[in-house]
């Protein structure tokens, strides 16, 4: 659920409850939930570049990924994630060899790149996507045409209109090889944990993992889920696109039949999100609909 919508709901609920004379505490009861810690270490274990291979978890999810600190891509709404938009934004090359298929040229944990990206927008301002006119961005960029009528709800995630061009900044981003402590990769916690909370929404995540197969595994399907939109590649081929504003669901989409070849296979993913939760998960399926648990290991190089 979109953050602004949550805020609206919270205000509405609070208003109703106060009106009913309820006594609501604004502070959460620390005893009610065992762990409210959302720090980086709760989600990820950083590993070395030459860490020993691991297997998928018992349900087949791949938990080892090398993830680049997120690229700023301010979007005040997730409604812009049409096919053409994510094709443009998630295949945009921000640095050399960003999409290399050469296993030997993959970045190692701790290495950094310097990119130029849009500066984050101040909170409370409408953050505009750059979808094609009339196709993605709600209501048009700052234009009055189709603007919400007085008293109408704004689209989820819309703040106040902005009219200025984005400011571009230089950003130094570092790769991190991690093992996720969850079946999914909590990208939002990757972002907040490595930025002291400065990066949270309006981001693009790039990640890869290496699948080491003992032999060719034909007729495999990559099953992915992401919040929000994503594109997935195997050995350089784009095999799955999850367009539109989505919540992460295991096996939300599956690729056509592919072959994981004997040796190293590079799986790459790019995820984009505006406001709200961001995460992803991935596993492989056989053609018969069962998950693949054996015959491969996972490394970061």
């Amino acid at each position, binding site marked *: 659920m979109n953050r602004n919508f949550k805020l609206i709901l919270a205000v509405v609920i609070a208003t109703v409850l106060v009106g009913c004379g309820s006594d609501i505490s604004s502070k959460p009861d620390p005893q009610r939930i065992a762990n409210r810690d959302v720090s980086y270490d709760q989600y990820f274990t950083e590993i070395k570049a030459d860490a020993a291979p691991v297997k998928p978890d018992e349900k087949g999810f791949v938990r080892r990924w090398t993830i680049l600190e997120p690229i700023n891509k301010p979007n005040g709404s997730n409604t812009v994630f049409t096919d053409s938009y994510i094709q443009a934004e998630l295949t945009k090359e921000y640095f050399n060899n960003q999409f290399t298929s050469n296993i030997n040229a993959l970045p190692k944990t701790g290495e950094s790149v310097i990119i130029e990206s849009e500066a984050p927008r101040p909170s409370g301002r409408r953050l505009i996507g750059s979808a094609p006119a009339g196709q993605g961005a709600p209501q048009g960029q700052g234009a009055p045409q189709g603007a919400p009528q007085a*008293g109408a709800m704004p689209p989820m995630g819309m703040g106040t209109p902005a009219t200025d061009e984005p400011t571009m900044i230089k950003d130094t981003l570092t790769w991190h090889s991690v093992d996720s402590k969850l079946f999914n990769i909590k990208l939002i916690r990757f972002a907040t944990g490595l930025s002291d909370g400065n990066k949270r929404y309006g981001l693009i995540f790039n990640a890869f993992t290496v699948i080491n197969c003992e032999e060719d595994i034909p007729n495999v399907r990559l099953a992915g889920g992401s919040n929000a939109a994503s594109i997935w590649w195997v050995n350089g081929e784009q095999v799955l696109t999850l367009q539109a504003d989505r919540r992460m669901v295991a096996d939300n989409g599956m690729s056509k039949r592919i072959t994981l070849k004997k040796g190293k296979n590079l799986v790459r993913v790019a995820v984009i999100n505006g406001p709200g939760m961001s995460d992803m998960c991935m596993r492989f399926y056989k053609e018969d609909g069962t998950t693949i648990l054996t015959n491969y290991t996972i490394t970061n190089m």
Partner: protein
Amino acid sequence: MNMKKIFQMGFAALVSVSLSGTVMAQIGSPFIHDPATIQECDGKYYTWGTGGSPLVSSDGWVWSGEGGARIQVGAAPDMMKIGDRYLCAHSSTGGGLGGGHAGTIRTMWNKTLDPNSPDYEWTEQIQVAESLNDEDCDAIDAGLFMDPNTGRLWVTYGTYFGFIRVVELDPVTGDRAAGAVDINVAIDCEATTMIYRNGWYYLLGTHGTCCDGVNSTYNIVVGRSKSPTGPFIDNVGRDMIEGGAKMVLGARDGYTGAGHFGRYIIDEGVEKMSFHWEADYYQGGRSTLGILPIVWRNDWPEAGYNVKPGVYEIESERRGYALEIATEYVRLQGGRGMFGGAQTQAPTVVPFQKLEDVIGNWPKGNIDVRLIDYQFRPNQKWELVALDEGTLGTPYYKIVIAGTNRALAATADKELTTVPQFTGAPEQLWSIDQLTDGTYRIMPKAVPGTNDKVCLISIGDSNVSLGKFDFNDVNCKWNFRQY
């Protein structure tokens, strides 16, 4: 070409067009009364009606009397394949309602149903049951049943004059089993037969008025028992020997008088019932062969539905998402109402997105398909058009984006796409079978480069492919929605 020939061709074309919209009865020349349970032999389907007149079909959808041989039987034969032979049970009528009731049930065998085969030869007939001229039974309308639990063979028989009876036969000889005794199991029925499923033996029969054309009220009914010898009880606890029964199929618009049930299991979860319509309004009120899906609800059989031609959402049973062509999402402008508060203006209708609003930006070549939330957008609306060929009990359909000729097609790598123009190629023809749970299976007639039989499957929530059908796999199931 003479004028008569031209007229005949024109008439045939008109008939073909007029029939292409119907999916209730078979097409061609499917004229029959009291059809035997359909049998497949060497790639063709066969059935016979009262008097032994045959119907034959190469695909199960288009039927004609050509290619079969009349068999020397009286009333209402039934047929069953046992091992590599076909057993026919038939009857001689006792004279009807006002006549005598000295009926007989006879059996005979053949190695093939193809009259052109050198093996085609019926064995000598064996009389296995009979009724006297005046007793509470009229031994006609035989129905064969092999118990899958025991391998024992049974025949039910009888008509409105008295009892329906069941007696055991020898599955090797076709004669009465040694020491077999006829057992009364129902009254007020004709055209009975038995089937088995999920621990229940079902006695199917026909109630209502026969042989009165468009005014017939013939209807197929059922009761069930834990034993092939009854008692067969209906859904409100009445014994069929007291006249109880639950209806399976009566009339549907344009078709009256369903009778003479036969079951054909294509695959697990894919079952058909054959029967006749007493009167097919679209065929001058003649009696025609009907084949419909069997749907099982609460362990009771019902006649299902072939998908009517029309415009539908094609919904995955897995997640409930809708099949769409993967075109750019186009947001609708306006139409965002208030969540609450006073309404200052009268509501207006939000215009639906129309095909002409978006089709100009669609790619011109092939477009992939996928699954996503249904928003009744033009790229999510599929028109099904029934064609004049098909599979057992269902026509092939072309499936196109409504308002276009862009057609769903199977690809050589067992995936899916849409092609800009429907050409009638086999990979663009789809059989749609309703399954026993009410959902549907969607299968291409052919996949280029392979003989694999595959169906449309959900892969994940958001994607589709072609894969082997498994009734127990929700990914293989679809629904057709109209709103």
